[in-house]
């Protein structure tokens, strides 16, 4: 379990992280979501013991990151932003260094390295110098060092940033595989990633924790949640017909598509369907919206800025 207690970090006069508190249970994939410079990386740097908090602390499975830093670091794996690596070493040398630094020796180290190499399919590049590898391989080497010692907590700062769609897919698959009875914390500014990977999301902006919910919970905050979007020939006419429904609060037309927002009274989707059949209106497409994360994200973070 991770307990962050009022984590705060200042860089001179700048307040980068402002009293962030949360608790995370094993089995959670937690996504830190926020604009650039929001304090996501700084929070991760504090959790992993790189930066001491200015105030507050965090306890990682019983180990305080300030008073028991080494023990806390032992059970964590960390991929820093941009996946920095010792470029002049070969993959094998680098993983060997990580294993030793993690206190693994002999057969134990061999097994840990082999497992990690296998998981990230790095076998073919083991003898290669890291700086000669492609970006995708470099990221996999970074992940390999993070999971090598089978950590209970995995902290990944923008793990898929700058990867192509196939590589992104692969990394996400790996994170999902790793998630079982572990805590995985990832940071991202890609909203789809939160939806695809996380079972909990925190929106952080200007150093403050603004929302802490499941991705579904965040979606429910969207005004698009439960809205119905239609593609019809004559949007104006249909709009006037549908806006009369008690189930509809508001109708918007954008680029020929009609979006009806629910008023909260009754089932909007069914009501629209009935009305369309009554008037024999032909539709090209109809879609029930689950909510739009980008809209939630914008409204939460902009509210803060305003």
């Amino acid at each position: 379990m991770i307990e962050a207690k009022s984590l705060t970090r200042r860089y001179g006069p700048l307040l980068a992280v402002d009293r962030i508190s949360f608790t995370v249970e094993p089995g959670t994939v937690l996504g830190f979501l926020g604009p650039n410079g929001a304090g996501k990386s700084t929070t991760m740097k504090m959790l992993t013991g790189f930066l001491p908090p200015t105030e507050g602390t965090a306890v990682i499975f019983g180990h305080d990151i300030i008073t028991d830093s080494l023990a806390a670091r032992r059970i964590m794996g960390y991929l820093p932003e941009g996946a920095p690596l010792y470029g002049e070493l070969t993959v094998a040398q680098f993983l060997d260094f990580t294993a030793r630094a993690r206190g693994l020796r002999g057969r134990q180290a061999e097994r840990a390295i082999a497992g990690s190499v296998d998981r990230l399919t790095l076998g073919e590049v083991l003898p290669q110098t890291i700086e000669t590898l492609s970006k995708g391989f470099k990221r996999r080497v970074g992940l390999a060092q993070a999971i090598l010692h089978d950590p209970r907590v995995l902290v990944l700062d923008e793990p898929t940033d700058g990867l192509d769609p196939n590589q992104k897919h692969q990394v996400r698959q790996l994170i999902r595989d790793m998630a079982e009875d572990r805590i995985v914390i990832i940071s991202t500014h890609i909203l789809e990633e939160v939806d695809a990977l996380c079972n909990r999301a925190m929106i952080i902006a200007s150093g403050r924790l603004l929302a802490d919910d499941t991705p579904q919970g965040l979606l429910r905050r969207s005004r698009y949640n439960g809205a119905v979007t239609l593609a019809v020939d004559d949007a104006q006419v249909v709009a006037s017909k549908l806006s009369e429904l008690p189930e509809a609060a508001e109708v918007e037309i954008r680029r020929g598509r009609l979006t009806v927002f629910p008023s909260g009274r009754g089932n909007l989707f069914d009501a629209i369907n009935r009305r369309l059949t009554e008037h024999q209106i032909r539709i090209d497409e109809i879609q029930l919206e689950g909510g739009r994360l980008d809209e939630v994200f914008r409204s939460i973070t902009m509210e803060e800025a305003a």
Partner: protein
Amino acid sequence: MSQQFSGNLGTVLRRELASYFATPVAYVFILIFLIMAAAFTFYLGGFFEREIADLEPFFRFHPWLYLFLVPAIGMRLWAEERKYGTIELLLTLPITATEAVIAKFLAAWLFIGLALVLTFPIWITVNMLGDPDNGVILAAYIGSWFMAGGFLAISACLSALTRNQVVAFILAVVVCFLFLLSGLPMVLDPFRAILPQPMLDAIANLSFLVHFSSISRGVIDLRDVLYFALVIGFWLIANRIVLEIKKAS
């Protein structure tokens, strides 16, 4: 020394040395060091002309050799880690910052030691030509290595100040130069008007040159070695503090 402490030191030390030899840095450094050492000894030192079987002309120029070559090794120690962000990797491993500071220093110091050992042909030469006092030569080698450690500790600490290796190099050369010459009027004169004589003497006593001159003549005084050991210790502690302050930026 706990087993874990030495284990962590060994791990970081091995990685550092692997990096030296994975790049041309190691080979270029050793080659230049050997060529320069030989050139100084034979041309400026007048090794043959003196017709004395000792290595004084060899050791006499070591401070000047180190003045540029040791900062060249030390400049990358922390500046490179900060530039590439690997410092975040290193300092989130279950290794303390103190262990990392010591291990990185030791790796570079051992490496310079290796370059020093590789000057052995000159020792063979002098033994073939005459009958030198090998005890004196050994003492001078040890003294020279300790002085290199002093230069290195200064360079390592200043390297933690910046992520730019060129800046780290220039800062290190300047500070090493001040330490080298602190006994000479060039350094003392600006202080003469504001500081009392005992403090001026203290500054003069900080000079590497003063402490090394007796060592190079083979007079190994424990106080001179202790002096260099203290310089190393002081700058490594400073390195640890600078690292803590600067790693956030």
